């Protein structure tokens, strides 16, 4: 089976051609090695980093967050449900873990709140 993909690893957006046969996956059109890994991953186990924001308990708006590593694409909405219902309390530093162990990752702060 042949598939065409756009690599999402960097803004260059290489057009990948992926050829899947039995247990071998060939990727072409990639500008770098990461594109090959992306092409294979996208056909076997697609992963995404999720970014969102978490409500602050003192009513002072939101703090931006991301998953500590890419998660399974199929788990994106489950992670979003957890993030949407969570709260965080200042002070917060970039990298602080705000929610532990959701679908195999942590939710960490990407912004600072004094």
């Amino acid at each position, binding site marked *: 089976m042949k598939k065409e993909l*756009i690599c999402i690893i960097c*803004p260059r957006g290489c057009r990948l051609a992926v050829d899947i046969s039995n247990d071998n996956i060939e990727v072409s059109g990639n500008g770098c090695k990461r594109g090959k890994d992306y092409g294979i991953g996208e056909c076997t186990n697609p992963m995404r980093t999720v970014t969102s924001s978490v409500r602050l308990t003192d009513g002072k708006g*939101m703090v931006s*967050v991301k998953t500590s590593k890419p998660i399974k694409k199929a788990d994106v*909405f489950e992670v979003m449900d957890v993030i949407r219902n969570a709260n965080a309390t200042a002070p917060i530093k970039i990298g602080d873990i705000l929610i532990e162990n959701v679908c195999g990752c942590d939710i960490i702060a990407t912004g600072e709140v004094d």
Partner: protein
Amino acid sequence: MVKFDLVVIGGGPAGMAAACSAYDRGVGSVAIIEREENLGGILKQCIHNGFGLHKLGEELTGPEYAAHYVKMVKERNITVFCETMVMSVSKDKIVTAQNRNGILQISSKAIIIACGCRERSKGALNIAGTRPSGIYSAGTAQKIINHFGYSVGKKAVILGSGDIGLIMARRMTLEGAKVEAVCEVMPYSGGLQRNIQQCLNDFQIPLYLSHTVVEIHGKDRVEGVTISEVDESRKPIAGTERYIECDTLLLSVGLIPENELARACGIDIDPVTGGAVVNNRCETCISGIFACGNALQVHDLVDYVSDEAETAGRFAAEYILNVNHKISKQLNTFAGNGVRYVLPHKIDANDKDDVTLYFRVSKPFGKVKMIVSDGNKHLSEVIRLSCAPGEMEKVTVKNDLIKSACENITISVEEQ
């Protein structure tokens, strides 16, 4: 009157990088004037990732990228005025600003304009129909959702497929809204291919190319929009209208460099970019006033904003410190076949560095050769497998070729 060697207007990614770059080159007193509460500019609300791959070698979110530069500013002895709005800039480099304490006048040796850009509004589009609530520019919706934490609607149509529109399609979907369609009046998207993949295709959001919104319905709140296919001259085609029920319309229809200060000061503006006319030092037609970032040209990657701002900061420093400032032989650049604009507009042939030309193609191309020519010889040639207006291109010309080039140089693309 307060005195600073350098005043940087705007504390976003361009302003912060420019200020640090000038400071590191020996400018003693540097001030950044920022109208918002904190440094960081638009990056503060761009909570998605994909920033910094070129410049910092790692993939960051907008707030993280901003934090990197905020830290750099704080580590240096740079004065920051937040919640301060610049009202005017004069040719003799006096900056007039105001904040809660009143009017502030700063005399300076050089100024860097790094005010960024703003969104084109609905008024500029002339869409027929009613004027209910539920119509937002995409960036405003981004701020309301990401920064204030409110939902903007449950069912949305997005007009315009620039990157902000695409990012917001995903963001609203993740927050539980249904994005019914993204309409793009052009036959191609203005956004990055990767964003079409990860923001639309990942969530099966349809992208209708050569389509626009022709009517907005609803009295108090948006109830729906009528979309229509458009012909080659972007005129709606009768009979192709379709009603889509929605409570929200997001507009992602272009960014306009913010240059009221520059215009009022008498700085020449390029009608195509909306930014100042500059030389390879990012210097405007007024000696000692520089421009960079989205105020100079709308970028798609912040990494290149930081690069450009460092150039502006470096040459502002050289201007202030009286290094290398006589321009004796100047080249002019022109957008040739298949090119919409090129920056810088002028090149000082006596500078010691290679010169990078930044430009956008006028329509999507397959394989092309990008040629920089002075009319007699090719100064640089690059092959690209594909290119599109949504992706800024750059070509570097070697310094020895700049030195020997004739006065007018043109960049053009040839289909292969």
